[in-house]
């Protein structure tokens, strides 16, 4: 069975986990700041080469595959990292990889060096349909405003699909401060600040056109969903682990609270949700690695079950921690808030569910009805 991470990926993971364990996510995040909230961590990730994980080797990166990015995403989720690791180093870089030959070398280098940070502006109901136009001088312009873009404040670049059908265009926009006018105060996810991105006036480059652009974009969005599913999975796992450890340490009625069946079964249910999500995420990884059409369905089930798992684990972990869990000082609320925020981004849950059922309906319409073999087949 070709399912799961290889030993190489697991050793990447343990290295990364050590680095992320030092993350300072307790610091009040600089909502709306143009730099990643945990600047020290961002620097450390740059220095150890993690931001270049999937950047081509020719441009100073490690040129690793999608599985390495899944490890990155899962560990970022586990560590509550207050940096745009999943948005930029995973989803954005992975999307660019499919059109690597037309990506400017400077952007690759900036991404590996942490000075460039990208976001995907997927249309999940929060972006005004972006318009694309060609000026008299041949210059390309896009217009449109995406709202409350997670990790938007620190982004320097954005990738988006403008237009549709034969007129569709996969566009890379370079953002200037004027494109991120208003940082949004009081974000739900305290460690993924968000802001609007107004594309007017941004310098843009055309990466692909027509059906090809649409296909590239669709894969980019599915891959992003899978990376976020791994981020959710990591978060869920960390929330359960924190609950488990606390319940062994905390005594009530003369015994550890983790020996009470109510909490044991609550944690067992968290484990179950995580286990289902992990199985779906690992299948998604296989689909990503195979470059297979199955990625659409696989990303959807990964997103759906990882969302469910993170919600159950984050709320459950808060409950197991009791009064301590609802304080600002404990990490519980960071998980709890992020679980809710990630449920809706990228893409509302109902949209993923709707799309999944569409795929199932399409497949059912095509599937042959199971019948006995024809006589010729029996002789064959």
């Amino acid at each position, binding site marked *: 069975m070709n399912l799961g991470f290889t030993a190489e990926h697991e050793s990447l993971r343990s290295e990364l986990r050590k680095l992320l364990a030092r993350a300072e996510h307790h610091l009040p995040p600089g909502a709306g700041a143009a730099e990643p909230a945990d600047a020290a961590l961002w620097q450390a990730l740059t220095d150890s080469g993690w931001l270049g994980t999937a950047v081509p080797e020719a441009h100073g990166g490690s040129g690793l595959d999608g599985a390495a990015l899944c490890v990155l995403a899962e560990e970022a989720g586990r560590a509550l990292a207050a940096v745009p690791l999943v948005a930029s180093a995973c989803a954005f870089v992975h999307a660019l990889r499919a059109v690597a030959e037309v990506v400017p070398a400077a952007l690759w280098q900036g991404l590996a060096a942490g000075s460039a940070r990208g976001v995907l502006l997927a249309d999940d*109901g929060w972006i005004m349909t972006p318009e694309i136009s060609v000026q008299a001088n041949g210059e390309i312009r896009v217009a449109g405003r995406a709202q409350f873009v997670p990790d938007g404040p620190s982004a320097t670049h954005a990738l988006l699909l403008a237009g549709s059908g034969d007129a569709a265009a996969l566009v890379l926009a370079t953002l200037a401060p004027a494109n991120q006018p208003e940082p949004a105060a009081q974000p*739900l996810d305290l460690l993924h600040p968000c802001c609007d991105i107004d594309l007017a006036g941004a310098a843009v480059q055309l990466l692909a056109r027509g059906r090809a652009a649409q296909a590239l974009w669709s894969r980019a969005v599915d891959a992003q969903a899978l990376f976020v599913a791994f981020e959710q999975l990591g978060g869920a796992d960390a929330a359960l682990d924190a609950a488990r450890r606390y319940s062994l340490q905390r005594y009530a009625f003369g015994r550890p*609270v983790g020996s009470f069946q109510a909490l044991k079964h609550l944690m067992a249910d968290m484990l179950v949700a995580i286990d289902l999500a992990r199985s779906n995420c690992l299948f998604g990884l296989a689909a990503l690695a195979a470059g297979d059409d199955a990625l659409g369905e696989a990303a959807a089930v990964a997103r759906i079950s990882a969302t469910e798992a993170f919600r159950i684990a984050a709320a459950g972990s808060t409950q197991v921690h009791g009064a301590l869990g609802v304080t600002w000082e404990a990490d519980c609320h960071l998980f709890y808030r992020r679980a809710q925020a990630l449920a809706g981004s990228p893409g509302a849950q109902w949209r993923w569910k709707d799309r999944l059922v569409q795929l199932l309906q399409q497949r059912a319409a095509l599937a042959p009805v199971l019948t006995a073999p024809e006589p010729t087949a029996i002789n064959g």
Partner: protein
Amino acid sequence: MNLTDLPRHAAFRLEARAWIRRHAPWDELARIRRMRFAGQPFETEHRWLEVARQWQAAKFEAGWACLVWPVAYGGRGLSATENVIFQEEEGPFAELFGPFMIGQGFVAPTLMAYASEAHKRRFLPPLASGASIWCQLFSEPGAGSDLAGVRLRATPCEGGWRLNGQKVWTSGAHHSSHGIVLTRSDPDAPKHRGLTMFFVDMKSPGITVRPIRQLSGISHFNEVFFDDVFVPDDQRLGEVGGGWQVALTTLSNERMTLGASTPVGFDELFELARKPGADGAAPIDERGVRERIAEWYAKVTGLRYGVYRILATLERGERPGPEVAVGKLVGARTTQDIAAFGLDLLGARGRAAAGDDEVSQFHEMFCFGAIHRIEGGTDEVLRNILAERALGLPPEPRADKGPFRDIPMAPNA
């Protein structure tokens, strides 16, 4: 919708409605509404307390405060039914009860049962008028759900007692004049028999109050440190060693008040779901959304009529059963579920509260739901109460028998 009012209650309701309509702080209505889920829409906490105190004082002057209390202590000697009717008629203004809930709702019944007549006449009227606020110093770092595990030590001394130790999760301690405090007076007695209850002046030397920031970012709770605090023996409530019985009085009032008085966010969700989106369709037009709304509404009415059933029990002169725990158990979880659903409906807009009152409300509700499932008895404690006291199921095997000092505790505690 007052089908269930008896004629005398219907008359009372009309009278209350007319008075509230004339005297409520309408200027502050918008802010008061935003307080529903522990939001803090006033410029300062001081201003919020001021508005609340003014409304409480107005009610007190006109004879609408603490309706169930005896007249001698500042009340009107009416029944719990009138009290609920008045709250229903207060509508959003009932939110202003917040700072007085613990003092009037939980502490006062305890004082009435255990304090001396002189103390009652001295302390209860200012509690009723809102002039003084009391807190309840119960939980400790090592004693939450297992409240009888408190360790704050009371040692007898000349004329009274010396208190040493720490309390935590004390709501409103920072603006309270007094509090009732559950102490360990005998560590050699079995757990539940070595406790004694006192009331203390919060300005006593040796008391330090330190606020705790909650997950919502606001501080309603405090840590309270006791460093050799003197309490005269006449401030003892109940017998020495009888503190657990006193605490049970307080707790049963707590559960009933919390369950009956808490909104679950249904109105907010219903309003949100009816607003048309960019495509002109409102979420409520979807059958799936309608079903969720109907299910939650049936919970809201179940909770409301559940309070009426408790009132009917009280009117028959009977004590309500442990089923009073249902209100908070269901309410807290429902709030959390509704908030998450509302945030899902809000989509991208829900990602930051940023000056958007509607969004802020759902953020606050989302935090409040998590807190409310813990405070005043966790879901698990309430289910235990229902299972053991309402259904008569056997208790868990106990690991905390024998002298208190021998009970196993965390290796690092």
